[in-house]
């Protein structure tokens, strides 16, 4: 690994029997990211349970309840690396809490990997996975048609599934789709191209993961710098120092740029952009930096620095899609919550619930009066303070928010801005 190794985050989704754990186990094993003691522990538990083969799911199912019940409860994070890239896998379970976990994993993913069993073809869940990936704007989608060994590596089977999925995907907004025939168990097309599927002209899964172009997925156009924290050293040597710390959400910032601070609307210029290692000539996502401005303005956490001619919406009325994540209380019209968006917090009221979306059929139920756990719906929110936001489809960092129950402090919902006014 070198200084130029890139980071790629991907989310995996699949149902219990489609071989997802086997695939992850193989990626870890073949890239030497799985250690002997981890392997031994899995073998020991498998043998003790009387499994016929070593159950690689045990690698990712770490909690006692998961092992006892043979289910996966929560998103598990796994890590592996090749000389080209370091990978973070958000491995989401296929059944319990499915939507909540998938939305969580997809929110930060550069790529999503969906598995289907070649013998079964697309199932309801595959369509649901694809829909959620498109809703969360995951830039790259990979469909792995797994268990090709069980259909005699048949091109016909693969072509049929690929055509069906492609037809479905065109109805969604999926920027980049790749379909790969694999056998996770046998290793075909996982790390290297398989001679048993000479008819397949694409690359292996790992080759794709290593080479898919992600640098341009970031929004480098719209400068958005949510102020996270104000650094004021209060020391004699830095008496007048005032720096605005934060992570660049999008765009490229340079010293000398004319900028506007929202919501106040004052304009000034960037005096310098600093890090602990010294000043930098440019800042872009996902850099954490400290911005210093030429003029002394009253800027605090929750404000946002942008360009005067390219600003986010400053809105108290927001149209959004919400995924509800709380099992205790449903989302209801008229209820008030806390909302966290970029580095800004406010209170919000659900003014309208326009419809609930059936994630399997995409049918809109306009008669719905609540959203319960794992349900998705379109709402209109009114906030106590203006949000400085963009449409999520244009900017994932300034278009996403979470809803928090003010009494319990639980994160009860995730939302994406569809339209702000």
């Amino acid at each position: 690994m070198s200084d130029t190794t890139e980071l790629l985050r991907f989310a995996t989704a699949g149902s219990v029997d489609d071989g997802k754990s086997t695939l992850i186990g193989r990626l870890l094993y073949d890239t030497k990211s799985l250690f002997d003691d981890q392997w031994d522990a899995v073998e020991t538990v498998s043998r003790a349970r009387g499994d016929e083969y070593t159950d690689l799911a045990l690698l990712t199912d770490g909690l006692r309840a998961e092992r006892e019940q043979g289910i996966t409860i929560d998103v598990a994070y796994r890590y592996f690396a090749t000389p080209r890239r370091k990978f973070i896998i958000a491995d989401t379970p296929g059944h319990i809490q499915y939507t909540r976990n998938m939305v969580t994993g997809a929110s930060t993913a550069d790529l999503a990997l969906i598995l289907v069993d070649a013998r079964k073809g697309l199932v309801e869940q595959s369509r649901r996975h694809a829909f959620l990936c498109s809703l969360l704007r995951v830039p790259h989608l990979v469909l792995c048609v797994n268990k090709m060994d069980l259909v005699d590596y048949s091109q016909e089977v693969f072509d049929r599934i690929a055509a069906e999925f492609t037809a479905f995907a065109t109805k969604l907004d999926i920027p980049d789709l790749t379909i790969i025939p694999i056998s996770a168990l046998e290793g075909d097309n996982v790390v290297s191209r398989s001679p048993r599927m000479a008819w397949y002209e694409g690359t292996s899964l790992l080759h794709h993961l290593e080479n898919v172009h992600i640098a341009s997925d970031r929004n480098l156009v719209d400068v958005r710098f949510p102020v996270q924290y104000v650094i004021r050293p209060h020391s004699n040597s830095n008496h007048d120092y005032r720096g605005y710390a934060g992570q660049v959400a999008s765009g490229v910032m340079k010293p000398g740029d004319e900028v506007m601070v929202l919501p106040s609307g004052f304009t000034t210029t960037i005096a310098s952009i600093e890090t602990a290692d010294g000043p930098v000539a440019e800042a872009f996502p996902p850099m954490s930096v400290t911005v210093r401005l030429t003029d002394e303005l009253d800027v605090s956490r929750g404000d946002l620095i942008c360009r005067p001619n390219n600003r986010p919406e400053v809105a108290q009325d927001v149209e959004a899609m919400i995924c509800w994540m709380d099992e205790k209380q449903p989302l209801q019209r008229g209820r008030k919550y806390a909302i966290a968006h970029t580095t800004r917090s406010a209170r919000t009221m659900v003014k309208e619930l326009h419809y609930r979306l059936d994630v399997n059929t995409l049918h809109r139920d306009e008669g719905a009066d609540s959203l319960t756990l794992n349900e998705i719906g379109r709402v209109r929110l009114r906030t106590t303070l203006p949000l400085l936001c963009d449409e999520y489809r244009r900017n994932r960092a300034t278009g996403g928010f979470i809803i928090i129950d003010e009494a319990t402090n639980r994160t009860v919902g995730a939302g994406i801005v569809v339209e702000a006014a």
Partner: protein
Amino acid sequence: MTSPDYRVSHLDALESESVFIFREVVATCARPVLLFSGGKDSIVMLHLAAKAFAPAPIPFPVLHVDTGHNFPEVLDFRDAYVSRLGVELLVASVEEGINSGLVTEPPDGVRNRIQTPVLLDAVEKYRFDALFGGARRDEEKARAKERVFSFRDEFGQWDPKNQRPELWSLYNGRTHPGESIRVFPLSNWTELDIWNYIAAQRVELPSIYFAHSREVVERDGMLYGVNEFIRLRDDETSETRTVRYRTVGDASCTAAVPSEAATIAEVIAEVAATRVTERGATRGDDRVSEAAMEDRKREGYF
């Protein structure tokens, strides 16, 4: 960090994420503290904290839960490091906890598990609402499912089935009085990332991380340094070997590994080639059961 096509290396991306996490906690929580063991992960954490708030000093204290079973090299390092950074050091002593009756010395003398009540006692005393810990998700399977902001109830307990969903970089650190958040800025780092970062940033470490000559005894397949906490049993013999420590914990349950790696570059080469996880190779405490770490975490362990 800059390059013509705006690429960011994975280490820079990890650093940036960790810096963001530190700033987020300080901006939203009332009384944060950093749990410092003198191990490499807590040293890297402190290094990142210093970077997050420069040129201002680190705006929170450091807490060492001291089992009384220390490597002297590590204590010396701790004191020199915190004094150089100008950060306040608080010590919660397990020894004092035993003397005051807060905890009872286990028959085997291993104080790992009784650290938890001592830690929780300090949290209550100082009313900390956010505790930075150096745990990484690649370390252990129960940790693989833990959030970056991990909620603890008023008993300090972790409930793995009831975790707050964590989306984008929106972290929910809200607590009621008495509750707290454990925050893990190194969640997405691996052991190799830590070492590559130590090399890139020239982070200083205690000497026991590098190959040295030490009197050791082989016990349960692991090499323990012979010291005042690990004494030879009747049927055991010690030998002098060239070893280093891969992790630094309680001196009574942390083992060394045979190693000739005397420099950071040699350690990186060794870590890259190793076939055993660091906890598996060095921690007697994780060998108790399949879910040893999960059980300790539920009780409020680091």
